[in-house]
């Protein structure tokens, strides 16, 4: 059986993706519930730390946001390596989506760190190695997003930003190790260290809940951003004819 097309309208290079009715995924609903549960547990059911006082509770949102930012930029690097190797634009969309979400989480890390620093250190900001490197990481990925916006050609945009995405992620191990490599004001890791976590169980459980809920929130945001990237590419393909 043959099918005859009476139109000369060409199919777009990127097929229009399947749509969800509202655009809100189950991941979002789970993320909102998990983050709300974290807030309730941290505010009402987690004891105050005796020396730092209530400001210590910033701990449940600060390193968890930093973890998600590192995860996001790690994904950028892996997807970028994959793109340079395979030239698959799907991987470029993954990198682009993870980078944008990572910048949001890094922004939150910097702001919440500053809000913790003022009552504990007596200053909003200090040019400490970890803080400075984290700010530098933020600038690199903001630059990555600006670069993407500045290049019209799809292939060139993907190639250039892949290189920057990989280079930026090289900072992540240095940021993690900066408290060991330099004399810094930033506290040593309490959980992410070779020995056992030095937190009481109640605080550790709240931290674990925050860790899981922020990771779920990342997945929800990343999926939504990736869907946007697919639909935007489909629109660009349609506009190009």
């Amino acid at each position: 059986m043959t099918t005859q097309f009476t139109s000369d309208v060409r199919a777009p290079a990127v097929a229009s993706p399947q749509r969800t009715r509202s655009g809100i995924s189950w991941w979002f609903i789970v993320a909102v519930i998990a983050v709300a549960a974290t807030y309730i547990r941290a505010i009402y059911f987690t004891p105050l730390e005796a020396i730092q006082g209530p400001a210590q509770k910033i701990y449940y949102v600060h390193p968890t946001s930093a973890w998600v930012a590192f995860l996001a930029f790690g994904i950028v690097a892996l997807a970028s390596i994959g793109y340079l190797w395979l030239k698959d634009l799907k991987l470029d969309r993954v990198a682009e989506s993870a980078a944008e979400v990572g910048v949001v989480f890094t922004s939150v890390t910097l702001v919440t760190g500053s809000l913790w620093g003022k009552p504990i250190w007596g200053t909003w900001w200090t040019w400490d190695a970890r803080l400075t490197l984290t700010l530098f990481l933020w600038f690199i990925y903001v630059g990555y997003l600006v670069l993407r916006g500045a290049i019209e050609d799809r292939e060139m945009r993907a190639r250039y930003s892949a290189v920057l995405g990989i280079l930026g992620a090289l900072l992540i191990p240095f940021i993690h190790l900066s408290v060991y490599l330099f004399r810094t004001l930033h506290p040593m890791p309490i959980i992410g260290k070779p020995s056992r976590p030095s937190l009481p169980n109640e605080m550790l459980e709240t931290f674990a809940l925050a860790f899981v809920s922020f990771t779920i929130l990342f997945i929800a945001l990343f999926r939504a951003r990736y869907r946007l990237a697919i639909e935007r590419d489909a629109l660009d393909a349609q506009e190009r004819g």
Partner: protein
Amino acid sequence: MPHNAGYYHAAYIIVAVVYGAYALSLWLRLRAVRRKHDQGSNGVRVD
């Protein structure tokens, strides 16, 4: 114990506002792209 609850209240509010605003921006951008896409599709005449 120091009285510094204001800082953690501010941090929790900022976290909720930033992530909420970003999620909303994604939804609005997606809606705008879909609207443009639909307008483009409707504009194509298939004879």
